[in-house]
């Protein structure tokens, strides 16, 4: 189908048979699949060039250390191939009106400059592009061209040209045998009638540079956890080699600092981010697993270890007994760089012993909390839905109706409702699909 045909079809959807899902992370993907499997049509709108959300960036997943790409990839394909799902990536929701059973949703199709129906994902264009810029998907650690996919499993497997950095040299246009590149492509808007809406916009990572004392941005060997995930990922910028940024050496000693931008009233993040303890432990274990002979010491500095979920406590125990990870209870005060070695000294009070410690690590990983995405407030006000004091979507009856917003026909799942790990996000995705399917089946009647 050409883009024009696609937009024409979308504007003619039958609202009682169609749901809109905003956000293509793991929760939005699950919601889409569970609606589509019931026979409803789903329009899945994702703002980046690919679905997958944060999970696509992760290396392993706690508590089983399953590789994230391995378990996510089949889901990506399933969504892309499902006959009832219309995938609109590189797109944004710009307006919503109407009510349950009959919403009108305006979606902006940002000009990707590559025709989705023509591009085969061969990547022939890439090497001809003269522009190199930091790859957002790799947290800026690796590079991409102006014509790019963030990662090899980009779904749909269609390249995107980033207009901001493209210099219109047309090198890629010449390189593409399939004539898939159209540098003159313009943004387009389409209004789609839908009966129910699921908000699955996920989270944004807390910006750890808001704590200047922790040295992020100032010292090269202080990185954040998502950067670390990309560093140890085989498909990442270092092809999975754990090394530190200042000199490319394998760090012999690594410190993980927990609760950076979580449980902190003064930084407007009073809540617990629910995943950092566990991903911190996971990443600590991975250091030992990847470099058992080189990494001698891995220490986690924490406030409480919140290993609450299925198999978590057992994983936490394993990290200590089998992998010899050290755990020190204490909020890190500040860090300093040794200018010679570029090692990082952590100053922290061990609150269990009262000792004041100065530990030197060759690499320090800050484990940030998570925030609601900035646009969530805009989407919420378009929808007429409340946000809670933490900035996530408000749910009135959490015990009985945990995915229902106050607006009939509008549901929420995953981290858009508050921080969650993958299984809880997936379960919530299914739950939102269930509730949305009731709205559709009843034709919007409440």
């Amino acid at each position, binding site marked *: 189908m050409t883009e024009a045909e696609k937009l024409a079809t979308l504007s003619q959807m039958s609202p009682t048979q169609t749901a809109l899902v905003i956000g293509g992370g793991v929760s939005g993907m699950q919601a889409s699949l569970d609606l589509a499997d019931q026979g409803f049509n789903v329009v899945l709108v994702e703002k980046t060039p690919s679905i997958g959300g944060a999970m696509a960036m992760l290396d392993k997943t706690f508590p*089983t*250390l*399953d590789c994230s790409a391995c378990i996510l990839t089949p889901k990506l394909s399933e969504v892309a191939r499902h006959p009832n799902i219309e995938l609109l990536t590189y797109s944004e929701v710009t307006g919503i009106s109407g009510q349950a059973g009959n919403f009108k949703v305006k979606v902006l199709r940002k000009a990707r400059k590559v025709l989705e129906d023509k591009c085969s994902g061969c990547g022939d264009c890439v090497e001809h592009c003269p522009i190199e810029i930091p790859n957002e998907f790799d947290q800026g650690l690796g590079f991409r061209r102006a014509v790019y996919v963030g990662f090899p499993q980009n779904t749909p497997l269609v390249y995107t040209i980033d207009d901001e950095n493209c210099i219109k040299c047309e090198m890629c246009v010449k390189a593409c045998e399939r004539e898939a590149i159209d540098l003159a492509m313009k943004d387009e808007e389409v209004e789609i009638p839908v009966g129910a809406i699921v908000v699955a916009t996920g989270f944004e990572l807390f910006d750890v540079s808001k704590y200047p004392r922790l040295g992020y941005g100032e010292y090269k060997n202080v990185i954040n956890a998502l950067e670390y995930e990309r560093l140890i990922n085989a498909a990442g910028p270092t092809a999975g080699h754990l090394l530190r940024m200042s000199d490319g050496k394998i760090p012999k000693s690594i410190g993980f600092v927990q609760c950076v931008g979580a449980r902190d009233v003064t930084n407007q993040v009073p809540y617990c981010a629910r995943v950092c303890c566990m991903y911190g432990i996971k990443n600590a274990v991975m250091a030992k*697993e990847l470099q058992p002979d080189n990494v001698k010491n891995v220490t986690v500095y924490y406030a409480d270890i919140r290993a609450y979920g299925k198999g978590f406590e057992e994983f936490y125990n*394993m990290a200590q007994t*089998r992998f010899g990870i050290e755990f020190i209870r204490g909020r890190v005060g500040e860090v300093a760089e040794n200018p010679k070695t570029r090692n990082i000294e952590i100053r922290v009070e061990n609150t269990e012993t009262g000792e004041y410690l100065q530990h030197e690590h060759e690499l320090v990983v800050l484990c940030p909390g998570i925030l609601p995405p900035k646009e969530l407030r805009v989407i919420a006000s378009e929808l007429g839905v409340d946000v809670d004091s933490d900035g996530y979507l408000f749910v009135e009856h959490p015990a009985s109706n945990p995915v229902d917003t106050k607006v009939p026909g509008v549901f929420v799942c995953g981290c858009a409702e508050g921080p969650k790990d993958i299984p809880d996000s997936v379960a919530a995705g299914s739950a939102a699909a269930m509730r949305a399917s009731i709205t559709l089946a009843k034709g919007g009647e409440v």
Partner: protein
Amino acid sequence: MTTAAVELKDWEPVIVAFCCNWCSYAGADLAGTSRIQYPPNVRIIRVNCTGRVDPDFVLDALDQGADGVLVSGCHPGDCHYTSGNLKMRARWALLETAIEGAGISPDRVRLQWASASEGQRFADGVKELTEKVRKAGPFRRKWT
């Protein structure tokens, strides 16, 4: 064939394992995801249930030169098909007699229960069997 001296120096036990899909195969998966390390001497054959394991498969493996055989399934009462493992257990008694009767060390075979949540138990079982078989030495019935 190779001489005994060479054999002993280079010899590593070869063990055939039959694992039921629901408990022990999953337990072995868990051992892997938990990065539990165990001897690399077993070769797992996945069957739906230990009830599927015909004693002939075990004898066949030994006959063809396996140094040991492991059958691993769900704990009694937990079989995905309610009672396949109980049938296997009943057959196992006969099989052991046959094996001993043939003059084969009972240390070469092992029936164990390891559930989907018992990665460690699965690995321990493999370790124990491998050690016993190693002690028992190479078994090359077909060629002796």
